[in-house]
């Protein structure tokens, strides 16, 4: 089964005059966006945890619960939960509560944390991120089995025959991978699905990761599991409109992040490349975006695609239009192309 979803990092949107909306209004708008995603027939709506003034969605599960109350079929999840700087017990509790509230529609995508803002906030040392993620992923996998748990480690108090509640039906768990082969193998070893975060460069370069994952699942004696793609994009009626709308905000955001994170500052040429057939930005008309999605999904053997829509500075109205076009135009075209 193929599933199409949307992810947001909850960037602060601007009004028509270019003034940033408040955090509270931004969050209420994300609820509206989630409801629209359900109305246009999408299968998943995910919120990525961030802790900065321009991305204030630090408590995704609360917002997801609000969306759950107003929808009936869309799945709701994190994209991602930064597990390294969180307590797996709390993550489990929050999402199994969401699973109860939504009648079995919760999903979790676990991440090691490429966005580093949560480490100092919660008192973690970035130098420990591999060990933190390793140990916490293990605990989370144990919690998902349900029932009283006994566990011991270095990153939290040990548990002895402990009930961690609420107990709900198992919910799908993914590991988000940005290019770490260790994370691919880890996902397979725990039986978690693989979400490839493709945010720059040629999506085709991830094909060996898909093969590695499938091979690793086999080696660990597990049944095949879905592979998903998370990529940024923006949809408008024409290619030109989509590209022009997205560019100034993309330049602003990557330019700011780039210096410290090692991304190149975009130029008009590099942007043209990223939105073109060999780049990782799914920006364009419904036809262009659909064609690129279908090609990428085939190439990587993916049965799930989550478009990460929205970028700081765009308006809520423009995001609503992207969601509408994605659900009503792009996704049906991709389904046809994959059929």
């Amino acid at each position, binding site marked *: 089964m193929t599933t199409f979803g949307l992810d947001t990092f909850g960037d602060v949107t601007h009004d028509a005059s270019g003034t940033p909306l408040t955090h509270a209004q931004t969050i209420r708008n994300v609820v509206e966006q989630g409801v629209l995603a359900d109305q246009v027939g999408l299968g998943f709506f995910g919120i990525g945890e961030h802790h900065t003034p321009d991305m204030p969605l630090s408590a995704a599960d609360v917002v997801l619960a609000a969306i759950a109350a107003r929808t009936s079929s869309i799945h709701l999840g994190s994209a991602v939960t930064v597990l390294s700087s969180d307590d797996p017990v709390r993550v489990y509790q929050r999402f199994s509560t969401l699973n109860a509230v939504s009648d079995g529609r919760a999903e979790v995508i676990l991440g090691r944390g490429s966005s*580093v803002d949560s480490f100092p906030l919660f008192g973690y040392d*970035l*130098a420990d991120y*591999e060990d933190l993620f390793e140990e916490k992923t293990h605990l989370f996998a144990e919690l998902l089995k349900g029932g009283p748990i006994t566990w011991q480690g270095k990153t939290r108090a040990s548990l002895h025959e402990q009930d961690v509640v609420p107990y709900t039906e198992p919910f799908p768990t993914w590991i988000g991978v*940005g*290019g*770490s*082969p*260790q994370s691919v*193998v880890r996902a397979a070893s725990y039986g978690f699905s693989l979400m490839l975060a493709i945010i*720059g*460069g040629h999506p085709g*370069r991830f094909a*060996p*990761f898909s*093969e*590695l994952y499938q*091979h*690793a699942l086999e*080696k660990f004696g597990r049944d095949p599991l879905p592979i998903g793609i998370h990529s940024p994009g923006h949809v408008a009626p024409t290619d030109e409109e989509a590209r022009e709308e997205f560019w100034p905000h993309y330049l602003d955001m990557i330019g700011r992040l*780039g*210096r*410290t*994170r*090692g*991304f*190149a*500052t975009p*130029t008009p040429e*590099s942007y043209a490349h990223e939105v073109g057939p060999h780049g990782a930005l799914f920006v364009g008309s419904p036809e262009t975006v659909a064609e690129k999605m279908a090609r990428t999904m085939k190439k990587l053997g993916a049965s799930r695609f989550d478009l990460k829509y929205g970028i700081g500075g765009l308006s809520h109205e423009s995001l609503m239009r992207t969601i509408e076009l994605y659900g009503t135009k792009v996704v049906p075209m991709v389904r046809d192309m994959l059929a």
Partner: protein
Amino acid sequence: MKIAVLGAGHVGPVIARLALAAGYEVGIAGSGDPARIEMITEFLAPGAVALPAADAVADADLVVLAIPWHRFPTLEPGMFAGKVVIDSMNHWPPAEAPLGTSEEVARRLVGADVVKTLNHVAYQDMEPAGGRAVGIAGDSPDAVRAVAEFLEHIGFDPVPVGPLAAGRLLEPGSPVFGVAARRQEFENFIKEQS
């Protein structure tokens, strides 16, 4: 010439692949048992041999350090004597340390010829190398020459930026860090700094 790549994360397998494509023999190592990286090697750098770090280094003429900076102190320094060592590591998050990573690497790996390069290119931009300009800094002219030749063979355009201390010019925060600068822009930037 034989290459040892230490690190099988984002960066290591990409460098291994580029070297294999250019015809080099490549050994690759993680921090532990090579069995742990065998699958990764098979799918991401087919043709490379997964080895314990000490064996990979012992066999090689050129060693690439593609491990996290905070793990560098876990390397056994003695095994690098007489080797040419590429430091592609970055302080993370960017640190106000008095010395660049490569100066510290050289200090600790006594007897090795350390050259700083590739640290300023994001792993997803390394392949294809496509003649991209990369800075190269080192104190030993022979080692710099050997590394420049290696970089050219795997598809980069190495631009000398000076002695190892000048490697700081390639670190996070620099105008060439993470930027697809051309040779001319690189040279202009280096000139401005000297």
